[in-house]
């Protein structure tokens, strides 16, 4: 099993979710995060004081999935989240040691 972590532009969330659903991945967890990267944030000025934070609002999508789907999921996210402009984000993949469904106590891929 894999844990896929994607940092994407907030307005792409719906597209990503649809793409994953199309693959049969229906569960995922979403976090609002801030990203630093090449993409420069807006310079904000408050009463003459400039704040150039280069901190940009992003959405983090975490999906646990079977090894079998993992690569396709990666690709699906990459395509759905892509706008071609800087700041589109990253996808990371980690090995998932175990998974448990709390309601039933099931473990492994059936738990996803």
């Amino acid at each position, binding site marked *: 099993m894999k844990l896929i972590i994607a940092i994407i532009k907030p307005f792409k969330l719906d597209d990503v979710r649809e793409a994953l659903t199309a693959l049969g991945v229906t569960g995922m967890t979403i976090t609002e995060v801030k990203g630093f990267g090449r993409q420069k944030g807006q310079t*904000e*000025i*408050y*009463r*003459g*004081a400039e*704040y150039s934070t280069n901190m940009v609002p992003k959405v983090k999508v975490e999906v646990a999935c079977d090894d079998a789907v993992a690569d396709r999921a990666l690709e699906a996210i990459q395509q759905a989240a892509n706008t071609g402009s800087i700041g589109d984000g990253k996808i990371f993949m980690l090995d998932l040691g175990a998974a448990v469904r709390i309601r039933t106590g099931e473990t492994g891929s059936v738990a996803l």
Partner: protein
Amino acid sequence: MTKFTTWIAGAATLLATAPALAQTGPIKAPSAEQMASMVDKGDTTWMLISSALVLLMSIPALALFYGGLVRTKNMLSLLMQVFMIVSIAALVWVSWGYSLSFTSGSPYIGGFSKLFLQGVDATTLAATFSNNVYIPEYAFIAFQMTFACITPALIVGAFAERIKFTPLMLFVVAWLTIVYFPIAHMVWYWSGPDFLPDTPTDTGLLWGMGALDFAGGTVVHINAGIAGLVGCLMIGKRIGYGREATPPHSLTMTMIGASLLWVGWFGFNAGSNLEANGLAALAFVNTFVATAAAAVSWAIVEQIHHGRPSLLGAVTGAVAGLVAITPASGFAAPMTAILLGLAVSPICYLFVAVVKNKLKYDDTLDVFGVHCVGGIVGAIGTAIVADPALGGQGFLDYTVFPAVAGTYDMAGQLVTQIKAVALTLLWSGLGSAVLFFVLDKIFGLRPSEDAEREGLDLSSHGERAYNY
């Protein structure tokens, strides 16, 4: 039309609405019984609702205007400071403030005859600016109470995010006593239009000099603004000043605050007329349009300087406009009020966005740059816009009975205004410095570094503003 005819017509109104007097003409130094017939319930209503409006300016308006601009972790401390300052100032006001401000004493400060409001009851009256027009003394006390509440609350913006709560409360009590009450007395105390002709020297120092301050440009804004500057210099910069970003945590709250300030300020300015007549309506219109003009002109300055106007800029401009029109609100004409509003924003902008950054004082919420600078612009501008030659209201000569329009001398008035500004800057600046120094030695004004980093909400009050 000259000022003179304005007041003649005003006198006509007066006579008509107080018919008991119609036969006899205005009464000099009326007896208490005669005065009782000189009260109009329309005026009483106006003073009461104006008082409520000025309280609205402090809580929640000023608290939100300030609170929205600090970081989340200090939001609650601002709300608490303003709320408690209002509460404490109200108690101080009725205990000794009213007496020290509005009874006869020296030119510098009043006496003790009305300590704890002794001698005041539901039938005693206070004079207005018209011969033979009175309002209930409690209404006057309530109205002036709201001024004593908001003025010290204005100060705290200058050293927001880094002040200990209890010493601040002590500062407020002391500052009201040795700075605010004397200045209020100097600027606003006089024996009233029916009595002044017989007691021409029974006035505060600046009133006697002829300084014009319709609603508190010197007493409130310059006074608080300079105290704030002194405070922020003596307390020092915030940890991380200039390095950490400190964006306003909620411009929404700041906008609500600014809007309610605008709404409440009609009570502040038009209420200062003490009567609901055409002059109050004029002060209302002036307050409206000067503010609008200042909001627009700040936005334009930003558009030019940064390529887009900001909400924070617009509301800061609006407040600067409100400050500037305050001393002039009953003297200007709408069109000169607009000019005053257009002028004040670029000047305050200079202080807030340029001078402050150059001189590197950490006036957190620009109390100096907006209230003191804007107040000075307004105080000096008053000398110009009050000129009847520019459509202004001039001034009334109250040493004759009934009062007549005085001969306006703009240059002379300018000098007087500058003297009043200078005296206020000096008195409040020095008084505040002494107080901050003493309190710092005794209690310490500044929280520990950890407490400041954690935020005053938790460290001073054990609470958070938000637990979403």
